[in-house]
């Protein structure tokens, strides 16, 4: 059967057809859809959202040791969080097959860095596949499970945004049935005390030698010979890009199984072409291996290390020119960056924070990162998930040490708080820091498209789940001052901020209102009655043309260039922030809406 699938869909489909029993993940672009697809088929596979990637991988390791095929999928930075179990599981190996999927983001379309996770395969001595298209995602996923079982090792599949989110035609195979190899106690294999780990380390190095032979033999590594003036070694989507540009004017060595590298095959390929080029997105990993094997090649001297290796960049690097399109100027075309949606419950908080001095605004990762932008400018630093609270803590200690009056405020979403913020808040309480932690509880994981999390009351397959109570958690960690506010009520928000900075101890403010894009649940409808059912409009007679409403930074509000009169468009959903800040009471509820 043939289907048009994205790489993510092909991975999910392949997992089901490979008889995978257990899948765990934490959302992250561009990997999110893998688990979403699986969770939608809960009759065929058990699939769950974990609170973070470390938990996801450790859970999958447990499932594999218990004897059934298991997987964990994550975005590139997620593997940093899961790195600890990843490295040591490479020592113990698995019971039944275990596959880890990392979705990297060359070009950083929605990420905070551009790390190249192929390094992890080398660093942990784990075999790695790099699919180029959806068919390879499907095929490699199945092979990865077989390889995992043959060599008793977790296998890494490295995808990139273009592989995850591109669609191509996939030929599906006969599904396999699920199986279980009953667990047998085996401490020499699974208990990594030093005495045992030393032997496991030796095994791991020996296994690597065997994998080198596999790499030479596998059909995923192959040469395609055409004109031999140019020889190109490529992996992942770069292989497709290269073929697009060079067609039959070059020969190719395609590396589909990329750790360990098939170096002898590449040496042979190199001997058949006049000049060898290595095309890989981001770091010169294959290039370094190839060159240190004594093979002459050209790589990053010519091709970019940063960003995507898009066809036009290959053409420019190689031929010194781009294809020319219609001539026009973009000088006066303004950018269109993402913004907080009309009605976003984060808006009220950022409006309040943006108007205050003396605060160190320690940000985190989620939709609320957009609070850094004008008109709010209300975030001073962003590092990684969970860092807002711990970095605020470090900063607060220094402010105190040098008698600065500055107060550190951590700004973190509900999903991010439950991901890793919890540990950081524990440190704030334990180390007696007077950090103000604001948890923006919009009842969903919004940035990645609205996934449930342990705080929302639903699991990945929309079954009921217990609700992790943020107030109770903060209290249990040792925070004494906790307040919950409605972020759409500016007075409430301002008072809570005044209260928090007046305290000489740690406090937590929870802003609780559902995301405007959230599919409301029954309990949301009870708790947040009337949310998003109204619209506001401008009473032009009352409007004083002061344009203060623009400081709400709402995409529903604009001001006429000539008259400076405000107007509100149809995307308004009635959060009322603009009405609260209008000094002329000119923004009023729209009747008959």
């Amino acid at each position, binding site marked *: 059967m043939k289907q048009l699938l994205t790489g993510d869909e092909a991975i999910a489909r392949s997992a089901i057809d490979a008889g995978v029993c257990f899948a765990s993940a934490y959302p992250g672009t561009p990997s999110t859809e893998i688990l979403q697809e699986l969770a939608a088929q809960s009759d065929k596979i058990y699939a769950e959202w974990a609170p973070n990637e470390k938990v996801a991988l450790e859970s999958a390791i447990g499932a594999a040791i218990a004897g059934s095929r298991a997987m964990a999928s994550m975005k590139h930075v997620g593997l940093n969080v899961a790195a600890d179990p990843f490295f040591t599981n490479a020592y113990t190996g698995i019971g039944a097959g275990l596959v880890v999927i990392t979705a990297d983001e060359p070009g950083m379309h929605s990420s905070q860095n551009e790390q190249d996770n192929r390094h992890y395969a080398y660093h942990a001595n784990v075999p790695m596949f790099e699919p180029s298209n959806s068919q390879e995602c499907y095929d490699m996923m199945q092979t990865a499970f077989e390889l995992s079982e043959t060599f008793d090792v977790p296998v890494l599949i490295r995808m990139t945004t273009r592989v995850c*989110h591109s669609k191509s035609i996939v030929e599906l195979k006969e599904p396999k049935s699920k199986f279980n190899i009953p667990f047998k106690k085996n401490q020499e294999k699974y208990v990594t005390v030093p005495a045992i780990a030393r032997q496991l380390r030796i095994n791991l190095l020996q296994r690597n030698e065997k994998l080198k032979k596999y790499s030479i033999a596998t059909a995923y590594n192959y040469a395609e010979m055409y004109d031999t003036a140019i020889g190109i070694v490529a992996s992942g*989507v770069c292989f497709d890009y290269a073929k697009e540009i060079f067609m039959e004017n070059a020969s190719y060595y395609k590396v589909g199984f990329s750790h360990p590298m098939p170096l002898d095959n590449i040496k042979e390929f190199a001997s058949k072409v006049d000049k060898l080029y290595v095309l890989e997105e981001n770091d010169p990993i294959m290039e370094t291996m190839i060159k240190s094997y004594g093979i002459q090649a050209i790589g990053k001297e010519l091709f970019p290390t940063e960003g995507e290796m898009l066809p036009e960049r290959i053409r420019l690097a190689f031929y010194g020119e781009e294809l020319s*399109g219609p001539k*026009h100027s973009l000088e006066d075309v303004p950018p269109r960056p993402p913004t907080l949606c009309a009605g976003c419950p984060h808006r009220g908080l950022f409006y309040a924070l943006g108007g205050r001095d003396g605060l160190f605004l320690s940000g985190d990762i989620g939709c609320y990162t957009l609070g850094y932008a004008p008109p709010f400018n209300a975030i001073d630093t962003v590092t990684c998930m969970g860092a807002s609270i711990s970095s605020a803590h470090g900063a607060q200690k220094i402010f105190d040490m040098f008698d600065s009056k500055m107060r550190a405020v951590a700004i973190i979403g509900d999903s991010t708080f439950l991901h890793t913020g919890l540990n950081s808040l524990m440190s704030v309480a334990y180390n007696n820091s007077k950090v103000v932690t604001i948890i923006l509880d919009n009842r969903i994981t919004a940035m990645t*498209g609205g996934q449930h999390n342990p705080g929302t009351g639903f699991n990945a397959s929309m079954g009921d789940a217990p609700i992790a109570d943020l107030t109770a958690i903060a209290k249990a960690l040792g925070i004494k001052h906790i307040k919950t506010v409605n972020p759409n009520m500016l007075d409430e928000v301002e008072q809570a901020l005044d209260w928090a900075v007046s305290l000489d101890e740690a406090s937590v403010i929870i802003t609780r209102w559902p995301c405007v894009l959230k599919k409301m649940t029954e309990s949301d409808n009870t708790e947040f009655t009337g949310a998003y059912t109204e619209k506001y409009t401008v009473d032009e007679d009352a409007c004083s043309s002061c344009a203060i409403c*623009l400081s709400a930074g709402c995409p529903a509000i604009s*001001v006429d260039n000539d008259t400076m009169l405000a107007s509100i468009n149809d995307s308004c959903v009635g959060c009322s922030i603009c009405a609260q800040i209008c000094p002329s009471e000119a923004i009023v509820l729209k009747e008959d809406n």
Partner: protein
Amino acid sequence: MSVKNIMLVGVGGQGTITASKLLTNVLMDAGHDVKMSEIHGMSQRGGSVSSQIRYGENVACPVIELGSADLLVAFEKLEGLRNLAYLKTDGAVVVNDFRIDPVGVLAQTAEYPPNVIERIARCVDTTVVAAYDLALEAGEAMTMNVVLLGALAKRMEMAPDEWEDAIKKNIKPNYVDVNLRAFHLGYTN
């Protein structure tokens, strides 16, 4: 048949993703090799979005190289201008006469450039569609994306029946009729 490249551009929330899904299904059912690439994520929050669709006998890569698109469908006119460089010199544009202000324009720190459609039309063969009005005529403003697909199908000289099947297969039953109306209004206007 040589590989053809179609690019759909617009603003997050305008339905470019659904439109590209319909288009790729139609092309696949017509027997083509199809590849499609799309960037979601950050771009959803009212930012620029684009879907790149390639079809033919044998498509090597899923992305469209700068300067090689045959057709550019702009769901919002400024996004058409922004992405013009993806077109071949003899490529064509189907542009929605519809304006969505970027944040900078709303905040009065930037200006929405004047004469956007005229500027596009000066460069390449351009079809202008009043998709918003036609979508309202169909009965639902949300069907603006399908109106544009109608105009695209016409431009590609494809018969409407395969599109109708794709709409029936891929769109929620309650919305099929209004989308079929939208498609035909786009096709015939």
